């Protein structure tokens, strides 16, 4: 188990990460989702033991990591824009194995095996300037996999990949996890990818883990003062969201997808937030459950059952109304 406990990390005097506890259990698939600048890459670098937290601890199997070289051999990070060393792709794949003293014949067997699974066999004799960004990304993942880490940390691993390459990568990762207890922690800003393969999706915003799922997270500026009945009207894109909060200034506003009522017409209800729009996407992520994305001035996502989708006659491009209470809006 790899975990961060009571971590506060600063660059200069600015807090970039403030996390009570973050765990990557053995064999798990954890996705961290959040917008650019939310602290995902910093979180991964701390987990990879490449940076020491300003405050707090990194623990591996319950023990606080003090030295790094031994622990680093169990945790490997692939950065968002990875770099390859001088030399061929094969030489790059040899690097981690050489460091671990693997013998030549074993080395070639492992390299050929991983290269085959990631579809980079034809690239083995090429040099870095002969590869596309997507190919570099796949080689970097292969380079991390050949050393068989206990925890593989991936920062936006498909940001340069086309659809087919991304599928190959996720398939290879799934095979690896089926073969041995490999934990993968992946940072992405693509919710679809995160939900497709991760067992656990966690949202990160402004360096803090959000207490809700990663949909419907908005960075907002809360106006000063208290409005009527403790309500504040906060601009989110082109709409105004009513929220109950006494906070002011920069904040993250979140609405859980399960707290949104979906209808075809505006409902007569106590909900202070009622927005009409059009369905943009219907995603079937778990059996019987549908994520309905709609453009109501901003994109909001609601979770409803398949039966409800059928009863309401929701189709992409069709009309829809989203309603939620002001008290359902989380501000942090």
């Amino acid at each position, binding site marked *: 188990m790899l975990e961060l406990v009571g971590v506060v990390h600063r660059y200069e005097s600015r807090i970039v990460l403030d996390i009570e506890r973050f765990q990557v259990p053995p064999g798990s698939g954890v996705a961290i989702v959040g917008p650019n600048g939310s602290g995902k890459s910093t979180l991964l670098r701390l987990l990879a033991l490449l940076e020491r937290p300003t405050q707090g601890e990194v623990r591996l199997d319950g023990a606080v990591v003090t030295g790094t070289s031994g622990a*680093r051999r169990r945790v490997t990070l692939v950065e968002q824009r990875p*770099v390859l060393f001088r030399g061929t792709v094969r030489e790059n794949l040899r690097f981690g194995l050489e460091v671990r003293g693997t013998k030549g014949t074993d080395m070639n067997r492992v390299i050929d095996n991983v290269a085959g699974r990631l579809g980079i066999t034809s690239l083995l004799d090429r040099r870095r300037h002969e590869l596309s960004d997507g190919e570099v990304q796949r080689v970097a993942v292969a380079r991390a996999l050949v*050393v068989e880490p206990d925890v593989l940390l991936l920062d936006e691993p498909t940001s340069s990949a086309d659809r087919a390459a991304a599928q190959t990568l996720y398939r290879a990762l799934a095979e690896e996890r089926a073969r041995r207890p490999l934990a993968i922690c992946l940072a992405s800003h693509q919710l679809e990818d995160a939900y497709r393969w991760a067992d656990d999706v966690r949202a990160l915003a402004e360096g803090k883990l959000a207490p809700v799922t990663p949909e419907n997270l908005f960075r907002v500026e809360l106006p000063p003062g208290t409005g009527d009945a403790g309500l504040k009207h906060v601009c989110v894109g082109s709409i105004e969201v009513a929220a109950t909060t006494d906070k002011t200034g920069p904040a993250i506003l979140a609405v859980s997808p399960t707290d949104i009522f979906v209808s075809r017409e505006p409902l007569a209800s106590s909900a202070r937030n009622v927005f009409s729009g059009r369905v943009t996407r219907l995603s079937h992520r778990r059996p019987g459950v549908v994520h309905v994305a709609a453009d109501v001035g901003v994109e909001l996502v609601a979770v409803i059952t398949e039966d409800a989708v059928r009863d309401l006659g929701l189709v992409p491009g069709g009309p829809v109304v989203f309603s939620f209470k002001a008290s359902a809006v989380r501000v942090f």
Partner: protein
Amino acid sequence: MDFLAEGFRRALALLFSADAEVTGIALLTLKIGLLATLVACGLGIPVGFMLATKSFWGRRAALTVVNTALAFPTVVVGLLLYGLLSRRGPLGGLEWLYTWQAIVVGDVLLAFPIAAALAAAAVQGVDPRIRRTAQTLGAGRWRTAWTVAREARFALAAVITTAFGHVVAEIGSAMTVGGNIRGQTRTLTTAVALYTSQGDFGLALALGLILLLLALLVNVALQVLQGRGGVGHA
């Protein structure tokens, strides 16, 4: 013009006849230059690595000192070293004053900041992801440093050639602590100065050409070494 042409003719004749004095001066200069470069780079490059990669109290001040030392006048270094090595100085017991060893020490003092400052700049120029990637793949301190050095090898080769060039071209320190003693501490630069002042332009020119040739040879040798490691391939 005749004076210049005559000078060149005499210089070439001395070079091709392998004049014993000229050869001796050239070999001594090469010995001093290589030894001083080896020691200065052997100490300076690791210090440069440390300055570029480690964060410690006083790092900025150390970088400033090293960068300032780049412009240290050679004759002042010679003067300070003279004070240290003279009979009444703290290192007088070594009896190194007016020996080639004293010239080596002076050259090391001059080339060390060059090696450290340029190596620090070379390492800082390497993409920081290279270092992080080596570390995350399990490399220890030395393997990580080697990996970074491989990426910076053109710049590090330039550090060595610059240090060597500085060492063989300096005259102030060599003259002050070496004394320009014929057959013992006379280097190419001190000899050029002497023979020019004596009006032997041809001999001075011959020695000057050898100096250029030495610098060229060291550059070519380094390039050949880089080539064996795959120069031109990324």
